[in-house]
């Protein structure tokens, strides 16, 4: 009995995890309200509202040179 349950759990975990990793149902779609998730130093100039992109007013400050020194080399 527990063997079938464990096999079932293993197959379910595999299908659920792989399915979510491949289809990514929560991923941002262009036109959705808000902005997508990113990696990197990114600042959005606006946001999507009601299916249209609305640019934000005003200029953003420029951070300048951000070198952090030899952090990874030490």
């Amino acid at each position, binding site marked *: 009995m527990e063997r079938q349950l*464990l096999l079932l759990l293993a197959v379910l975990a595999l299908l659920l995890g792989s399915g979510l990793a491949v289809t990514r149902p929560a991923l941002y779609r262009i036109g959705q309200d808000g902005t997508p998730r990113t990696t*990197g130093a990114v600042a959005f100039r606006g946001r999507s509202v009601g299916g249209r992109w609305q640019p934000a007013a005003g200029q953003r400050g420029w951070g300048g040179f951000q070198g952090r020194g030899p952090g990874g080399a030490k």
Partner: protein
Amino acid sequence: MSPARDISRGAEVVRWPQLALLLPLAPLLVLLAAVSVPRQRQLVVLEGEQPASSRPFRLHDGWLGSPEIRLRAELPPNTAMALAVDLLDPAGQTVLQFDQEGWREQGIWQEDGESGRYDESDAELRLQLRPRQGGDHTLRLALEEFTDAAGRPLPASLRVALVVDNHSVDGGLLLITAAVTAVLVRLLWVAVYGDCRQRRRLRVDDDGAALRLELGGAGLVRVQVLARYEEPDLPPVRPQPAPRQVELELAVSDAWGAVLLRERLEVPLRHYSNDGDHWWVVNTSRYLRLSEPASLRLRASLPDPLAGGAVELEWIQLLVEDGVVTAWPVAVTPLRSPG
């Protein structure tokens, strides 16, 4: 008595859990397939402050992975930049606008009399999204700022590598899935191959351990002998080196005392040491097949002392499991019918 030899067969070998070992590999294969899919690559050259457009690239709206746009500025050493990026859909409408900052620093580090070169940068961006509808999209890039480390403006000239992958997957989630599936398959193996009708364990501070119990039925009888040898408190004046093998005597007799099996086996004696302590371990297993249920006495004994008194038996443990199955064929000693 020289015992007959056989291998486990029929219902004694359960193979299907071996197929379950393939389950944790599946997410890894999906990850491998996703990273080997060809990507759309191009280089956008920015000259001056005029915006430059990329060549159109296809964003695909499917369920086999999702689009990922990667932008990496090829910065010279000790510079910083700010890019203004617009994403245009197939109809030419702006659907996303953002600024990307980046820098690169090169230099020499010194610490505790050591030194070396470093080259650090942060000039890459990954954008994961789905298009409203699949089609050719374009990026419009403008170099807003381009300065040296001191903040002085530099001549605006920069190359930006653009890579579009339409089938990216969540690699972290795939690795977690593989790990979770591997744990569940391991539990399945324990449930299949660690299961038995009866399990008895006896550990004694002697040179032999014996158990009498009712055994027999479907499956095999697994007999494991585990023993530990140590150095005596008072080592001999002339110690000899410990042997690499010892002779294990395994005897099985029935309820009337008739000997069904008497084997002398050369088994390995493994040496371990830690912090000046030395010990030796014997760990060996045998599989027996009974033709019908019976009351049996099993006895395992080991020589003591070894190496002229330099190694003494500390304890011996006899573990008997009745009704076990194996994942693959193993050597089996069939016992003749008692009585």
